[in-house]
């Protein structure tokens, strides 16, 4: 039986991601001291007319809140990471290491970069959680 795929950057997708994060012992361990919330932004491109903001509040190895919005003013997160959908696809399908993505500016980061550099293992575990969400990138 094939698993139903969730459309990337939808409320259903982020809720499943939120659950996967909270099920992951590896993430909980790697991010046990992490305190910081994010907007993961899907930038507009030919098929996407306006950006989508995926909010996630990560705290001591858990996701406390996660939702989709088109209004960036609803939260003022500590970090904002932006990329077009194809770049997010490369990250989630493990073709682009998140740190390498940041260093080549394929992923654009706003926030305290030094703090991110102390949490690269947590970032990788977070990406692993996304791989457990069956994802359809046909936006």
């Amino acid at each position, binding site marked *: 039986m094939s698993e139903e795929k969730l459309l990337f950057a939808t409320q259903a997708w982020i809720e499943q991601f939120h659950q996967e994060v909270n099920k992951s012992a*590896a993430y909980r*361990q790697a991010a046990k001291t992490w305190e910081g919330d994010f907007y993961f932004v899907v930038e507009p491109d030919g098929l996407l007319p306006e950006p989508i903001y995926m909010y996630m509040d990560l705290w001591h190895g858990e996701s406390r809140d996660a939702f989709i919005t088109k209004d960036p003013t609803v939260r003022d997160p500590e970090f904002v990471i932006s990329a077009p959908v194809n770049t997010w696809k490369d990250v989630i399908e493990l073709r682009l*290491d998140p740190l390498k993505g940041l*260093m080549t500016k394929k992923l654009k980061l706003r926030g305290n*970069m*030094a703090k991110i*550099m*102390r949490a690269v*293992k947590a970032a990788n575990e977070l990406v692993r959680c996304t791989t457990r969400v069956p994802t359809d990138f046909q936006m």
Partner: protein
Amino acid sequence: MWYFRSPEIVFGEDALDHLCHIEGTRALMVTDEVMSRLGFVEIVKAKLAEAGLECTVFDQVEPEPSLQTVRRGAALMLEQKPDWIVGLGGGSALDAAKAMWILYERPDLAPEEINPLDDLGLRQKARMVAIPTTSGTGSETTWAVVLTDTEEGRKISTGAPECTPDIAIVDPVFAAQMPPRLTADTGLDALTHAVEGYTSTWHNDFSDGLCLKAAQMIFSYLPRAYANGDDAEAREKMHNAAALAGLGFINSLAAAAHALGHSLGAVFHVPHGRLPYTIQFNARGGQPTRCADIARFLSLPAADDQQGAASLVSAIRDLERKVEGPLSIREALPDVTPDEFAARLDKLVDNAEMDATIVASARDLSTYDTRRLFEYAYEGKDIDF
């Protein structure tokens, strides 16, 4: 997409003479007291004087330089306004020079804020020359900066691509003065760079050849340089090998042996490099480790990846024995009891997991794996998990 970064490298006998031809008005040399005592500082100052540069010396860099030292050096730079930063010494002096240079150009930053993701806009005030006096860290060819946060008891393994030195002067004249123990420790450090640069998941076509060549040279020349410090050929080859290994790993990335080594260095102040254990760990993961390539290049048995990894581990242990290096953490820390080591394990694991290099390991490490690697490396046990 990726980048290959390198300084202009001036190498070989009399490479130091290149300093006589640089253009500028004022240099600030970052070094340590040993360099001053050995007369190395005066030699470099004389070359800079020939080029017409005045030179101020900051010789207060300690082994494993602290954030406080970096702040003091940067303050002196802001006062003196040099247009050249000259790093002279081992990895500590060169790393400190890079960090001070960044803060001189960007006084709005704190040393702990240095990272490879920000655009820094360096070279508005000064450029940098790196002159290594040891043959190991390869700091002269890299943008890596390792500092110590003495309050948190951890090494900050950071850097910024822009702080790759403009010029690396790889002249064997100073390295010839290294005592045997320093020769061995720094040489094994360079081998760790070469092997991890080749086996990290960020390996690439531009770094591969540098890493293989460096590894081959280290196996050939480190025992000679260790046994006879006056062996000029071995000294020069080791000096070049360290620079090559630095160039190799900085353009790929180091991996778990570095993460573990940085952690051990911060907690127990021992030279880093736990290479045989991480090679064995990677080889048991079932994924290709590229160790067979290295083994074949060294003419070691390598019918498959497993045999290649085993051959490489065996060759590294032989090399460690030849240069009388410790084969386990326990041997490296004779004054630390097993209970004292166990008491610091949580800290060691936490430090290693915060080190960016850990993500480039051929095999993923869980927290449990990292802990067991430390335990096995402490006892000198072959990895069986």
